[in-house]
C-alpha cells in the first residue's frame, strides 16, 4: 500500500507539473514568436526492480513555425523559416527570439518591448519611413530617396532544441546548443524575412485546453489511487476488534 501511495503521489505531482507547463503555454498564447513546450514523463524505475511511479524528465520546446499574420506595428518583422533574431540588452547580453515586434528608438536602433536592440540595424536620423526586404536589407526612406540602413541577419544553432528559454519568447545559447551561426536570410531555400508581419505563437488554444482536461482527469485518477490505498490502510487497522 505504501508503494501504491508513493506511485499515486508521484502521478499527482507529475500532472501538477504538466498543468504548470500548459498554463505557461496558455498565458503566452498571444505573445508573438512564443514557442510552446511540453513536459516529458518517464517511468521511475531502477534497473531490475519494479517501477515506483513516474518522474518528469524535463520540458521540451516545440520550435515549429507559428502562423504569420499581417500586423500594424511600424517595424514588425517575421521569420519565414528557421532562425532567430539576435537582440542585445543594455549590458550587452545576447538573446535570441522570433518575436519581431520592434519599434524605432531615439538612438536609431530598433528595439523590442523589453528594450533590447536588434543587431545589425542603425537607422540614420531624419529617416521618414523604413522597409526591410526579404533578404534582411533595411532601407530607410528620406525625402530625397532611400538609403541602406543595415542588414538583419538571423542566428541559427547546431542543436536549437538545446536553447534555454529565459522567459516569454526569449532564448539563450547554451554549450549544448552551440554558439549562434550567422545566416543571411533570403536564400533560395533559406529563411526569409517578412516586413509588416508577425509570427503568432505556435500554441494551439484548443489543443492546450484538451491537454488541461487530460491532465486534470489523470490527476483525479491518481488521487483516487491515494484514497484507495488510504482506505485499505484503514481497513487493515480495523482488523483487530474491540
Amino acid at each position, binding site marked *: *500500500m505504501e*508503494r*501504491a*501511495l508513493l*506511485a*499515486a503521489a*508521484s*502521478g499527482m505531482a*507529475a*500532472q501538477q507539473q*504538466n498543468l504548470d507547463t500548459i498554463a505557461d503555454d496558455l498565458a503566452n498564447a498571444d505573445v508573438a514568436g512564443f514557442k510552446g513546450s511540453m*513536459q*516529458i*514523463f*518517464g*517511468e521511475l524505475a531502477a534497473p531490475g526492480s*519494479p*517501477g*515506483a*511511479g*513516474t518522474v518528469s*524528465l*524535463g520540458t*521540451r520546446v*516545440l*520550435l*515549429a513555425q507559428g502562423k504569420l499574420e499581417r500586423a500594424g506595428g511600424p517595424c514588425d518583422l517575421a521569420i519565414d523559416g528557421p532562425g532567430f533574431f539576435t537582440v542585445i540588452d543594455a549590458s550587452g547580453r545576447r538573446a535570441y527570439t522570433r518575436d519581431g515586434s520592434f519599434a524605432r528608438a531615439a538612438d536609431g536602433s530598433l528595439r523590442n518591448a523589453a528594450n533590447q536592440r536588434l543587431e545589425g540595424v542603425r537607422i540614420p536620423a531624419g529617416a521618414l519611413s523604413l522597409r526591410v526586404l526579404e533578404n534582411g536589407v533595411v532601407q530607410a526612406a528620406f525625402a530625397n530617396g532611400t538609403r541602406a540602413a543595415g542588414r538583419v541577419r538571423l542566428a541559427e544553432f*547546431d*542543436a536549437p*532544441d*538545446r536553447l534555454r528559454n529565459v522567459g516569454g519568447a526569449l532564448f539563450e545559447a547554451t554549450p*549544448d*546548443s*552551440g554558439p549562434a551561426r550567422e545566416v543571411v536570410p533570403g536564400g533560395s531555400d533559406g529563411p526569409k524575412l517578412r516586413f509588416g508581419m508577425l509570427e503568432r505563437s505556435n500554441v494551439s488554444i484548443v489543443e492546450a485546453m484538451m491537454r488541461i482536461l*487530460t*491532465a486534470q*482527469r*489523470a490527476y483525479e*485518477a*491518481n488521487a*483516487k*489511487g491515494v484514497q*484507495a*490505498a488510504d*482506505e*485499505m490502510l484503514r*481497513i*487493515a487497522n*480495523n*482488523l483487530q*476488534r474491540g
Partner: protein
Amino acid sequence: MDGIGWAASAMVAARARLDVASENLANVSSGAFVPLRARAVLTPGGVAVFRERVGLHGALERTGRPFDLGIVGAGSFTVGAPGGSATQTRDGRFVRERDGTLRDPRGRMLLAAGGAPLRVPEDARFAEDGTVSTPQGRTVARIALPHGSSLHAGFLESGGVDAIAQMIDVLAAERGFESAQKVVTAIDGTREKSASDVARIR
C-alpha cells in the same frame, strides 16, 4: 492452511493489485510506457500475485518535431552509451545534439544497426523502413526494425495505459481487500465464540 490464512493471502493479493494499478495510473502520461499487469495465481500457500508487462503499445500521436520517432508494429530502438550497455526502448523522443547524435530524454544515444551511435544531418529524412538519408537521397544510417514494422518521424508513441480499466482495478482491489477483511473478521468471530462461549459452564 486455515481460513484466516487464505483470507490474509487474498488481502495481500488485493494490495499487490492496487500497487500495480497505481503504478500504471501514475504513468498515464509517460511516453511509450508498457503497462504492468497483476496476475493472481492460486497456490497451496495462498493467492500469489505476479507482476508482468503486457505487450500493449499506445497509439502514435503526431508531434511535428523532426526527430520524434514512433514505431508501428514490433521492434524497438537501441539506446545506450557507445561501448557501454545497450537498452531497448520504444520511447522515440529524441533530440539532435551538436555532433549529430540523437539523444533520448534520459541522455542515452540512439544506436544504429551496427551498434555505433547514429549521426544524422539537421535535415535528415527518416524512411518507413528505418533508413536515414539526406534530403538529396544519400543513405546515412539505418535503424534496425523487424520485418513488417515501420518507422514514422514526427510521431510519438503514447503510453499504453487505459485509465478507465486501471480505475476499475483500483476499485476492485479496494473492495476485494474489504471482502477478505470481512472473512477474517467473521472467522475471528466464530473462533472467539468457540473460545469463550462453547466451553462456558453455567
